[in-house]
């Protein structure tokens, strides 16, 4: 388990309270889980993601992530239509652990409303929330 000070958080992403991150990529939004989430889950062994074309609202379940400890649901930090998912995770779920913001990304969506990104926590706000959880 990492200490709070060891967590890697990206400044260019927004964070949801369920530990998903969302990042603007042109007119699309890329989604994954935070370093804290992957660290808490432990070794990820399976990731289930939605089909391309799925229309999901903010807060809807978009998949599940399974580690040797538990299965957790994944929730949309921003609503929209799924335009791509990370096919590499099928054979290499460990990418979620080793590179949660890069090669371990999960889905890309065409957002219903790009402004929903603004409602997410910033890096500092998210860090503040994590400190609260650790106490």
């Amino acid at each position: 388990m990492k200490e709070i000070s060891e967590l890697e958080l990206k400044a260019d992403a927004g964070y949801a309270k369920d530990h998903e991150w969302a990042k603007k990529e042109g007119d699309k939004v890329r989604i994954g889980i935070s370093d804290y989430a992957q660290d808490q889950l432990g070794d990820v062994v399976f990731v289930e993601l939605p089909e391309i074309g799925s229309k999901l609202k903010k807060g809807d379940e978009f998949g599940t992530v399974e580690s040797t400890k538990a299965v957790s649901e994944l929730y949309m930090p921003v609503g929209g239509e799924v335009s791509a998912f990370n096919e590499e995770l099928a054979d290499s779920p460990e990418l979620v652990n080793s590179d949660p913001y890069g090669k371990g990304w999960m889905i890309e969506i065409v957002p219903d409303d790009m402004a929903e990104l603004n409602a997410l926590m910033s890096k500092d706000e998210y860090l503040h929330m994590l400190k609260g959880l650790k106490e």
Partner: protein
Amino acid sequence: MKEAIGTTGLVMNEPLLWEKSRKGRCGISFSRKDVPDASVDADLAGEGPDFPDLSEVDVVRHYTRLSQWNFGVDTGMYPLGSCTMKYNPKINEKMAALPGFAEAHPMLPPDLSQGTLRLMYELERYLSEITGMDATTVQPAAGAHGELTAMLLFHAFHRKKGEKRTKILIPDTAHGTNPASASLCGYASIPVASNEKGVLDPATVADIMDEDTVGIMVTNPNTLGLFEDNIRKVCDIVHAKGGLVYCDGANLNAVMGIVKMGEIGIDAVHLNLHKTFSTPHGGGGPGAGPVCVKKALEPFLPVPRVEKKGEKYEFVWNRAESIGKIHAFYGNFGILIRAYTYILSMGKELKTASQHAVLNANYIKEKLRDVYHLPYDRPCMHECVFTDKAQEQYRITTLDIAKRLMDYGFHPPTIYFPLVVHGAIMIEPTETEPKENIDAFIAAMRAIAKEAEENPDLLKNAPVKTKVRRLDEVTAARKPCLCG
């Protein structure tokens, strides 16, 4: 210092039976052929099954060695939370082996099966009495099957009233199989968060209970080992909206003869005979998951029902509202014999067994609370839940603690469950263990806490005394090998 029960010793390796096979070797004598050879349709002929050629001693050594690699409750303490791994008295096996039972055939007519029918009839009544319910079916094969049976009963109940309800409430401290059983019945599970005390808050239930909701599936005591002390109010809220209350009775071992489920508002409860009633569990199964119900649900119980007419027992199939059959023949009858034997052996001491189970769990909780973090600090029922929070600073996790316990000669407790507790360690000692064994377990847990602080590698490399060292669970899950 007393010698630890966990030690090393010579452990025999054992290959697969096919590797031991030597052509032509045989351990049995076939009967002399007393009918002429007959030709077989070519479509039906082919290669026979791939059986190994072995002598009797090959086979006996094989299974004896495998059994020595195993750890069961006959070997030592097995405090697997939520599983009630209590000792299975040998008299259960003796009774199940009585020729009248062991050689009974399910196709025999009732006239020649009076003893087996009587056992089912009486067991149903004993289970109804123990739970304070009105009627019982012993057909379901295990806990989750009992859950599904109860959901089918609820569905039949609502359908008779012309209602189509689609959702069911499931607390986050319920057993993990509950949502699966509800889904199989076509219901959508609505999660209910427990409160800061680890139990249901009636206000939370009142907020989401409506007339589209079938009812609620509570586990009581819940998976935190806590008694749902608002259960009466929760039941009233659910009933007021026309819903029904299902209780997952997997944790009945805390409350046998103490809580009358029928009187606190439960409409249906399943029991795990392979937990509470001392029948074999896990790989030693099969199990049995009887469902006890209130009067209003009785017409829907699976057929055949066993009824008594005068001095005679008979099967009754003619129940128009029954959900039908849910198991071949009459359920796992061999298990019913063992549970029946247990109930008769224990009599009113069933209540004492529950009291001891609760006392043992609380004793462990109090003796370990200064070295392991206790997420819900209140008296527990038959199991107590700790976490690895105090060991986090040494980078030691629940998994490491569990693995190290093996070196001390104990089966690890349930870990990472319930999910509402991060890094949960769930300990259920049952009434089986005498105080000296529980003290030895406590001493081992305390020694491990000290090792975590002083020499964490001991835990990270554990187990070291077992035949097989720590398994690579990650690779096993990522790249499962599903063939032999």
